[in-house]
Each structure stands twice: as C-alpha cells, then as structure tokens.
C-alpha cells in the first residue's frame, strides 16, 4: 500500500491515498493541488471519512471546484478542478 500520484492525460491527474488516515489524505491533496496548473482536474480516491471534511474546506478556501463526489462503501472518489 502506497500513495499513488500519476498523470492520466493532459490536465487530468489521479491521487490515490486509499488506506491512509489523517493527516495523509489532506496533506497529500494540498501538496498535489500545489503542483497542478489552473484548470487541471484531480481525481482523488481515499477512504478516511474525516479527511473529506477537511478537503471540502480546503476547496472552499482555495476556490477549487469540487466537480463530483462518489461515496460508495466507504471509498470516496472525488474530482476537483483547480481554480
């Protein structure tokens, strides 16, 4: 089990922090969002519920748009567009 970050296509990235608890998901998300360009989209996969609350707040604070939230069976798959 390791954190996975990869470029899927131009402007489309994937960050998988499944299996990690606080503070890993939110800190890795912040770090990755810092690397992306404006308009890039990140697909974020995680399974630590409390991290989701912080990530929503981060998006609100930074102006990033949460395009999609799929929360099934304890695995969260979110898509975030960088402002």
């Amino acid at each position, binding site marked *: *089990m*390791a*954190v996975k*970050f*990869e*470029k899927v296509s131009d402007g489309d990235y994937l*960050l998988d922090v499944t*299996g*990690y*608890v*606080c*503070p*890993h998901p*939110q*800190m*890795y*998300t*912040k*770090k*990755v969002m810092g*690397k992306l360009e404006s308009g890039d989209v990140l697909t974020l996969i995680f*399974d*630590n*519920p*409390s991290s*989701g*609350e*912080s990530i*929503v*707040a*981060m*998006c*609100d*604070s*930074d*102006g990033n*748009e*949460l*395009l*999609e*939230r*799929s*929360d*099934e*069976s*304890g*695995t969260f798959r979110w898509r975030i567009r960088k402002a």
Partner: protein
Amino acid sequence: MANDVKTATIDAAGLRNGVWYSHKGNVYALGIVLLVALGSVWALAQDLRWIYLLVYVWFGLGYGIFLQYGRFCMASAVRDLFAVGVPRMAVGMLIAVMLFSLTAALVKVLGVSTFHPHPLGWHIIIGGAIFGFGIVFTGGCATGSLYKSGEGNLGSMLVVLSISFSQAIYVTLGGWLNKLVPASWTQSAVAKDMPAELTVGNGWFDQFTAGYIWDLTGGQLSDQLGFEGLFTGAFFGNALLGAIVPSLLLMIYLYQTAYRKGYQRRFKIETPRLGDHLRGIWSMVTASRTTAIAGLCLGLLAGAHMWATGELREHYGIFNFGEMLVDMGHTAGLSIQDTVFDPGYWYITTQEAQWGAWALDKAGVQMTDNIFFGLENGIPNPLINAPGWMSIGIILGAALLALVRHEFRWKVPSLETAMFAIIGGALMGLGARIALGCNIGAFFATVTNGDLSGWIFLAGMAAGAWVGVKGFNWWMEWRAGDDELAI
C-alpha cells in the same frame, strides 16, 4: 457552501436496494444496540448498582455516535489548521467548549459537579507540547483514535494500544531515570511520608507527582475572582469569562487568519465592513454543519454525563466507584485507599493506562508500587473498569454509526502508518501523563469548568502540533526525493 455538489452516495439507511436488513451494516449496527441493551439488562439484573458503570457505557456510546457523525477529532483542530489551513475542527471544538461550559455551570449550580481543578505549573505546557507533536503522526487524538477504531481502523487501534502501554510503563519507570529527577522533588516526595509499598523515592513519576505536582495549586475562576454567588460564579465566572469569551476571541482569530481571505474572495467583498465580518464568522461556524452539530451535541452530552454521575454519587452516598465495588465484593485491583479511577465526566487516557497496567500485571510485572496506580487509580479488571467502558462505548457508538452510514471498513495500516501510530501514541502517552490528561481531561474538561490550566494545555498542544506539522512535511519531502510526480 460553495462546493455543494451532487453526490452519488448510497442512501445512508440502506433502503435503496430493498428493506433495511438487506444491508449487512444495518444488521451489525442493530447487533451493537442489542448487545449494549441486553448487557445492560443483565448487569442490572445482577445488581442495580451497576447502573453507575452503565452510565459511563451509555454516554460513551453517545460520544462515539456524535464523534463519528461530525468527524470530530480534536487533533485536527490544531493539525489541519497548521497543515492545510482549515479551521473546521477548531471551530467545532470551540462550539463544544462553549456549550459544555454552560451545562457544566448548570451542574455546578445543582450541586453535583464532579470536577476537580488541575494544579497549575510548567508541566501543562510541556506535556501539551509533547502530546500535540504526537497527534500529528497518529492521525487522531486519544478520543479520535477510539472513534476511528470504531470505523474499523486497525492503525487507530494500534494508537490506543500504544497510549495504554506507554503510560503504564512511564509511571512505573525508575532506575537511571531517578537521576534525572531534581533533588528538591525527591526530598519533597520522601517528606510526604507515603506508605512504604509505594516506594515513592524510586520512580520518576512518583517523585514528579508527590514532589512537584502535589506542591502546586489550581482552582476555578469563580473562586479565584472571589465570586461568592453560586449562580454568578458558575455562569459568569467559569462559563462566560473562563470559556465563552476566550472561545469567541479564538474564533475571531481563526476567522482573521484562516477564513477571511477565502470568504471575501468567494463573495467578492473588496472593502469589508463590520457586518461582512460578522457574516463571515457565521459562515465559518456553519461551513461544516455536521461538525457544528456534533460540537453542540457533545457539549450538551458532556454536561449531562457529569450531572448523571453526580446524581448517582449523591444517591449512593459515595465519592468514588471504588467504595461501591468494595460493597459489592470486588476488591481486586483497587488502590490501597480502595479507590479506582472515576472522574465522573468525559476522560480518556487514564483508563487506557489502566488497561495497559492490568495486562502487564497479569504478565507478572509489578505495577502497583507507585502513586499513580497503587495509591490513586488502581488497576481494576477491565470488565469492572467504569471509565474503561466509556472508551469501549465510544468505539461501539462510532462503529454503530459507521456501519449505518456504510463507512465501516477494516483498514490495515501500512508499515509507515503503523510506525507513526506506535511512536506517536507513545509520545501522546508521555504528554498526557506529564500534563495530567489529554485534550479531553486536561483541556476540554478543565476550561469548561473555569479551570484556566486547560488553555495553557491548548497552547502547548498547538505549539507541539506546529512543530509536528513541520516534521511531517519534512518527512513527505524526504520520501518524494526529486521525482516531479512523486509526493
């Protein structure tokens, strides 16, 4: 909320695909409810006095439910503020503090408060800092680790184990550590003329307790300010001045430093007026509805818990559960004063230390030749450890809601997470023992009862968490190396 997107969440009640029991989680959740209900009935059928212990279980269950509901972990109050600039949990924590301060004041007016002020000294900020450093790496505070254990997180269970055993070991260590203890502490401790079996002159924690802590004083703001009226002292002194005003000031600080900029940008406010700032603060409070609701409910629940235990003590004419255990014929594991740990309110770390000590005692390690276990808290069998059952209640309550919300998952920690859990948990245990409690016992329970020592603990915890976040960032950078896509 700006990011109020449509979600593809499975219906929380599990009804989308048929009847409620078609989802296993709901069935298991019902099993937990039945387990607690039947266990309670069985215990009461044995002896009605077990209600004293059951109150801890039931309130623990309630804490667990609301902690899971609001993702309420006080570690993130300081950690996420420094790590990702999110004040969500800090705000939730302050809401809980304000509500608990009001309910605690009411309990004091009713004359059944179980609260005892903490001694004021340097140990609070030092212990708080060590604790705050540890929580960054474990992923949760002591309570947060319990509720996350209820979500199936095995890493959080490791944290609980580490806190339990590390505390038990710390309070019994002597040997070369005796040489680090100031001579004045040793002299003062020995001069207290304690029972010989406690060997107070051997063991750093005994000398710290008897030679330093016992020489300190503490108190509640109502007494320190000389408010003689019970109502004025409890509500104006303890609640308003001791908890609500500091909480509101901290909220303004959080708004100014972590929320205002984003709020003004979202609502395109270029020259904000007072009304804009007030709306901004309200927006910050309501930004995470679940956290705010959890804070409100936990504050109310904590006060009700203190009231219920206080009333039971009045009813049974006891000061400590140990007296009741003796009457019921359970004398094993009590301290030499026939007492056990019995705070009468939300508390976490001491009962975990008792679990660790009980296990070590069963393994043949001498665990009672010290003040912490031998004189004060005892090491009762976990089956009759009332605050221990509150912790188990928290795990069960969180599991119950996580199962219903389809969020329960067994999560096996990676080597890195396990290492952080064990080392961080050991640091949390050390910090909690030095500060005489964790973020619940040394902060939440104190500031809400007019004991300002809790704000000092928070300052220490925040400082430790700030250093911890720097360390965690360094760790991430070190792991990433030079790879552009590595993180």
